[in-house]
């Protein structure tokens, strides 16, 4: 954001008051604090307006593509390190269906990608997009693939460097706002025209250096393409770390506009590529596309993405209170755990395995695990007893006993004293719960 003085210099300096502020300077100060909109002054010149809008824009442009309903959003990052604030827009993971593989294989890959969705610690994680690519196969297969992707109502990336074929393909999936890959030094003008006509985001790549890439992006922008994605196309992981780091730094620290766009990494299927995908998630790829994403590699990759894009200040947590597993009654056992999502969902999954209905009391620990919150004094016999009271546990289950995590066996005595309930020390790992619950309930 520019300062009040920088803004002031660009205002008409008429001090006419029509903006409802006595002077242009007063208006500039409000603008700098984002309290008013520039439109309130009827006299700003179009040139000043452009300059001001530009300088107020985020360092990395927010680009969205994919379905109208729930578009994928990438870019708009402000940090180099997640601990400085947070990373906002998780890396989009996509699978490439290439027409050289034949139509059947392409379709199978797309279906598999769409099906690869999971619940993990209460969040939905999945493969987010399919990329339909024309390489050595027939353009007919490519277009058929695009038609299939469009019918799947799943975010699509169209991959061809042939502007004519691109125009044909995008006409088949306009409703899903695809990302177009890509403009290169060879086809820039024609591809830019295609992108401009549909106003879909355009990936730019094939440059020999970052300098050239920034020039291509600048050219595309001047020609009227606003949503750009940069594809530096690196040969090795080391090079990828280098270019993506430099792009992020140039955008965030230097506000270098021609590189102020989201990035993408188009990978193959080698062992190195599998780990490059992980590098992309950690180090600044907004989109990672891979030729193969079998679940045994996709699932850990999605988990990594979930970890890296968690807000460092706020752990993923669930609401404290009384939860049920199955349909417990007054004879069912009562267990307690913490409201850290990871803890809660791990315990819940293990209880479900036992097939025994239980009351699961979730204690507020500010989203910390059992041992962390116990060591930090956030999980105490007092806090557990208070929740037992407020959730009327004794009315729900008349067993007058509670199963506690094995790791906090030390709180047994005090908790018994405070509640009068019998304390049953559970296993240290909730994986031991099914066995134990069977004996407790049986």
């Amino acid at each position, binding site marked *: 954001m520019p300062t009040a003085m920088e803004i002031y210099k660009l205002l008409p300096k008429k001090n006419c008051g029509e903006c409802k502020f006595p002077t242009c300077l007063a208006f500039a100060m409000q603008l700098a604090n984002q309290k008013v909109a520039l439109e309130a002054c009827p006299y700003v010149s179009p040139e000043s307006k452009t300059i001001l809008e530009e300088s107020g824009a985020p360092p990395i442009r927010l680009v969205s593509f994919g379905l109208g309903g729930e578009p994928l959003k990438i870019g708009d990052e402000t940090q180099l390190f997640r601990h400085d604030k947070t990373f906002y827009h998780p890396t989009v993971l996509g699978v490439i269906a290439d027409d050289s593989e034949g139509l059947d294989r392409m379709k199978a890959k797309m279906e598999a990608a769409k099906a690869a969705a999971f619940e993990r610690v209460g969040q939905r994680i999945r493969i987010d997009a399919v990329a339909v690519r024309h390489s050595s196969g027939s353009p007919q297969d490519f277009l058929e693939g695009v038609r299939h992707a469009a019918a799947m109502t799943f975010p699509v990336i169209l991959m061809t460097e042939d502007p004519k074929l691109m125009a044909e393909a995008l006409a088949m999936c306009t409703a899903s706002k695809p990302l177009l890959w890509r403009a290169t030094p060879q086809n820039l003008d024609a591809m830019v025209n295609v992108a401009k006509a549909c106003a879909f985001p355009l990936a730019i790549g094939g440059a020999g250096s970052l300098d050239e890439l920034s020039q291509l992006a600048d050219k595309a922008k001047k020609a009227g393409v606003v949503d750009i994605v940069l594809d530096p196309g690196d040969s*090795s992981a080391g090079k990828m770390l280098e270019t993506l780091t430099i792009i992020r730094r140039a955008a965030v620290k230097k506000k270098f506009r021609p590189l102020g766009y989201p990035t993408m990494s188009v990978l193959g299927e080698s062992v190195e590529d599998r780990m490059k995908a992980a590098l992309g998630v950690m180090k600044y790829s907004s989109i990672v596309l891979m030729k193969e994403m079998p679940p045994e590699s996709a699932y850990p990759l999605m988990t990594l993405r979930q970890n890296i894009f968690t807000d460092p200040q706020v752990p993923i947590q669930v609401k404290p209170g009384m939860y049920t597993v199955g349909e417990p009654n007054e004879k069912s056992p009562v267990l307690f755990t913490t409201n850290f999502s990871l803890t809660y969902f791990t315990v819940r999954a293990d209880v479900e395995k036992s097939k025994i209905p239980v009351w699961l009391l979730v204690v507020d620990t500010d989203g910390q695990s059992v041992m962390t919150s116990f060591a930090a004094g956030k999980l105490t016999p007092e806090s557990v007893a208070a929740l037992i009271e407020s959730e009327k546990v004794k009315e729900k289950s008349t067993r007058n006993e509670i199963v506690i995590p094995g790791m906090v066996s030390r709180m047994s005595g005090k908790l018994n004293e405070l509640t009068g309930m019998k304390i049953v020390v559970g296993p240290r790992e909730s994986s031991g719960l099914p066995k134990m619950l069977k004996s407790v309930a049986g």
Partner: protein
Amino acid sequence: MAFDVPKERFAGKIREAVIGATREQGGTRRSSLVVGGSGGLPMHRFESEVPHTPLVVMDVVDTPRVVPEVLQASMGPIVKDPVEWAKKCEKEWGSDALLLRLQSANPEEENRPVEQCEALFRDVLKATTLPMFVYGCGFEEKDAKLMEAISNAGRGERLFLGLAEEKAFKSLAAASMATGHGIVAFSNLDINLAKQMNILLLDFGVKPENIIMDPLMAALGMGLEYSYSVMERLRQGALSGDPVLQMPIICDASCAWGVPDAVEDDPRKGNVLQRGTNWEAITAYSAVVAGADLVIMRNPASVALFKQAVKDLAGGA
């Protein structure tokens, strides 16, 4: 607008640590290893010197109870024979160094006597030529005696002994100081605690080049993000010139095998062993991207994957 490549320079530098001693150096290892030494962000070869690429320390545990079933099945019966296990790490699996975990000394489990543990250590030492780390069982009283015995039995080998913790480091530090070994300084996911641990050791008289830090690696899906950020911050603190944070970092990625997501049978998430393999490799790789100089790993397939990836990461600039 001409493009001016933004590069970063730092005042500080990570210290080098030497692990293992050859015959000429008074030990019996085939070579000694050097870790650390970088003057920049992790693997940022395009702007700083990275003299040593991160190394793999495969672990050998003296009781198979800690090795999950999927892995026991793929590693074979050697998990019941630590000496054979160690030999495989060296000869077949390409480990750079070894970590012998004397878990069975645990008084609440096998409670194996110190003499037996020492004998096992001697056997492993004799059967292998890789530089070695040796960890106790985590019970202070037992470890005091155990690590003293190991430290004497390994005189001249320049072992790294662990784990030194805030409330339990004196006996370990004394033992290693007397025999010239290094120490692994454990702290709990907190940059200030890591610093505190190093200060305690330095004040006790341990030389800075004899310390490697373990800031606790939480596995993928189990709080990895905390470890990742603590390491990034440790590294930045070191580079900005804080001498008490300039020790190399070791991370234990074998914890990946304790993650339910990684080892549970769920066909929707793909082949278990391959998923677990990726899980450990990604845990180790993320540690390196965040700043680790060494990683502890268990599964040979994960080691192969990790090594190839690190080579690719080192090859770019």
